[in-house]
């Protein structure tokens, strides 16, 4: 039973009070250019997941609290939460630097 803290309303609660939303920072191609999406781009968006052993950027919803979605960075080998941040926000710079896979590409031009 994980202990999770919602960065929006500040409540600290148990895993069953929250809803997990999978990998974070996946761009939806149809939201930007719906006419020009290859089958592979659509596949990557729908299915390809980085799934690292270690630092994982993910989405949660404060289900039984304020109802807001938020981001978290968690280690998948220890369950340690490294950071919580808003659903429209980027992770702390230091974590962006540690990011791997598709996140590293996504964050590359945002680490300033």
């Amino acid at each position: 039973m994980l202990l999770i803290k919602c960065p929006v309303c500040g409540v600290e609660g148990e895993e069953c009070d929250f809803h997990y939303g999978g990998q974070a920072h996946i761009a939806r191609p149809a939201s930007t250019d719906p006419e020009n999406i290859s089958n592979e781009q659509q596949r990557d968006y729908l299915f390809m997941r980085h799934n690292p052993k270690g630092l994982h950027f993910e989405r949660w919803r404060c289900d039984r609290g304020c109802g807001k979605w938020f981001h978290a960075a968690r280690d998948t080998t220890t369950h340690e939460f490294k950071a919580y941040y808003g659903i429209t926000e980027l992770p702390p710079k230091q974590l962006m630097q540690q990011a791997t896979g598709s996140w590293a590409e996504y964050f590359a031009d945002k680490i300033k």
Partner: protein
Amino acid sequence: MSGKPYRLPLQNGIGRRVDQTKPVSFSFDGKQMQGLAGDTLASALLANGQRIMARSFKYHRPRSLISLGSEEPNAIVGIGEGAAHEPNIRAGQVELFEGLVAKSQNRWPSLDFDIGILNDMFSRFMPSGFYYKTFMWPASFWYKVYEPVIRYAAGLGVAPDNRDQDIYEQIHVDCDVLVAGAGVAGIAAAEAAAISGQRVIICDENPYFGGQADISTGMIEDKPQIDWVREKTAFLADHENVQVLNRTTVTGAYAHNYLLALQQVSDHDPEMIANGAPRHRLWKIRAAKVIMATGAIERSLTFANNDRPGIMLSGAARGLVERYGVAPGLTGSIFTTNDDGYRTALSLKQAGVGVARIIDCRQQTESEAVNAAIAAGIEVQFEAAISNVETSRGGKSIEAVKVAPYQKNRGRVTDETRIACDFVAVAGGFNPVVNLWCHNGGKLKFDSGLSSFVPDSHHDNIVAVGSANGAMDLATCIDQGYAAGETSKFKRPKTSTVKEAKAESLWFSPASGSDNEGIHHFIDFQHDVKASDLELAQREGYESVEHTKRYTTLGMATDQGKNSNINAMAVIALATGKKLEQVGTTTFRPPYTPISFGAIAGTSAGKLFHPVRETSVYGWHLKNTNVFEPVGDWRRPYCYPKPGESKQDAINREILNVRENVGILDASTLGKIEIKGPDAAKLLDLVYSNMFSTLKVGHCRYGLMLNELGFISDDGVTARLAEDHFLIHTTSGASDRIAAWLEEWLQTEWFDLDVFVTPVTEQWAQFAIAGPNARKVLEHMGTDIDLSLPFMTMASGNIGGFPVRLFRISFSGELSYELATPAGYGQSLWDAIMTAGSKFDIGVYGTEALHVLRAEKGFIVVGDETDGTVTPHDVGMSWAVSRKKPDFIGKRSLQQPFLAAEGRKQLVGLYTIDPDEVLPDGAHAVREVKQSPPMQTIGHVTSSYWSPTLKRSIAMALIENGRARMGETISFQLEDRTVKAEIVDPVFYDKQGDRQNV
């Protein structure tokens, strides 16, 4: 054996826990016996001369208890009868009560004479893993012959025979400090933490706090340890920051310091149960810090026939005498590797129990305990070891032990002396209880002084103190306890520790002859794993300790290897020439001791298992039918049979009444979500495949929701209440899912939209009134709404005095209204409709009639006609897929090659050639009928009913390229026959929709 000699005179501190003025009657295997208040079942049985308490798992060897704690592998019994029977309980931890019924397990026909002992006689042919090498011929014999025999012989206790009547509950708490274990170290930690103002929970699995303090030497503040324990326990119990829990085992440590503790509230007292107390209470604890003060478990010693009844741990022998005034026997031998054996010898001697000899594997040594034993006249033999045990026939009672000179690494024994005795106490050193440390991934390190593993690093906020941390002397235990409790202000008490001689470790005591092969050197007692088995596993290449464990079943019994783990590692080390620390340990998994399923279920079983979500007229349904089906969180009436009426007749009657007259359905379970804000229409255009921004205020439109994969996810009718305000309907099971889904998109993708999503399913009661006479019923009730409002429009107003939203929508194809009223008016409005409707013979209908009515009209049900792999095009709803909108959920995926391909399965109607033949649900059509399977299928029936309206069977099906095959006859191959059906349009009734447009 007579019972008398085993209860010692209760004087001079002998039998401190029992009250000789309070006899307690109980039974064991049907035999009436008497113990004393304060006894455990084990001490009372021994006091009655009942030494054998169980049979071992594999070889059915007679066994007695070896310990007084939760590490007990042998003395496992069943308690209680019938539905209240609980199997597999450790007799040494069962507190005796009047009328207790105990039964031995895993024996037939009786504990005394168990036919299973044949396994012991043939044990040589049944080494570890023998079953992997045989029972293979002929192939079917494993399942048909061998396995049933093995299954019958395996297992320990029997399950209760009926539903448990007792209560279980759970409690969720958080605390600053959780102290697991209330020995002196744990008590010190709790006291320090409490004084420094922290909120403390301290748990101990035993009824009494103090751990081993009452049978240990060493003083605190010049008083016996147990006096200090009592004083501090009272202090903790009174302290407002402290929750004191006895009979409570911290069973598991999970992520983020989440711990479970099982409190056995009333197992010891049937009166409490009778008065309504729960049997178990599961504490779910979130602790900022955990102090692990779980103590240490004494090791047994590995010698030939070391499992015989009457061979027990040194601490257990001492505890039996001092706590319960029960002699383990008349005369005992003590086999020791350290000073603990001497303490036991002295204790026995002082209580008047005979001590034949202390057999000490160490070289001659001196210490306070050793000197005291010698001074007391106890014979001590150094550099010696027990090499074997002589028993009566059947191995039920010990007659003597054989003793041989001992030197490390010396092999087979040649000269043995015989020492007559009827019990043996063994002291093999101590293993810290590190289970909790490891449950969530703490690391261990090897302590060569203890020859055991102790806690090392941990990523959680947990500290180990006392003997759990490898501290074996009183002063260090207390120091570590107070330090962990984190207070500097506190003055540590003065302790006096008895200095001990250095302990040795002895992992395998050689024997003479073939016994030296280790074939009777038991390691895991319950599972009958012997030293020879562990060696065999190494020899065969099952070298990883996990392989050894699985091959031999080591540590897989109810005690999970608490007693056997380190001894086994040591034998493996000897067999492979490795060092003990190189062998490693198997993984410690929760729970520390088994916990009841009842406690895990808590109050969530029974009525609260999945609470029924009730519509405002659920009570009315309960009075008018007993045929329900679970739908989402609800139970919906399936149909309303009249007395003597079959379900099918009731359904047909309900349907015809709608078609010919008027029916009423409780549609309150329909999901309702309000969408409000300037961007409401924009959101709906994104989440529905069809267009909603063009919907006029006061109008309704059917919509399809897809998931991002392009498949149909939900459907329903949406009404536009105002320019910026919509009410959407979802299917009954899906309202919560859809509301959450909309919210997710709104927050995570289209967060710039200015719109709110508000689920209002619970706020409105909603009833469908359908049939040619529907309007008459409403007219009769009186209304300010013009009831001639056109199909697919809505209005707000009053009907029969109730505020309503009135929707002219239809799922039956008849003239139909859906009335929604605030849920508080639901029952009254329902009653008013029924009253007004009685004039027109209004009939209530259930979900099955609803389904048939819609099927007659060819309306799909999401979940029947669709299954998560079906697109709008597949079900003939391409009209609901907007081409104008640049984007909506699922749009792009509809273009993925396989979804856009030709020849997909498409929704069609079916008329069976024989109109009376109703196709079974899910029947598959075949490309070609063959004599026998396999046959290639081309699609399946999604809905199939007898239509009382059309007086024939109808079905809907998803058939490969179906729409192009109209008029074709296809074959459904059933178990016993082929059913032929013609592919037709799925709208079977009133294709033009004249009936709903009146």
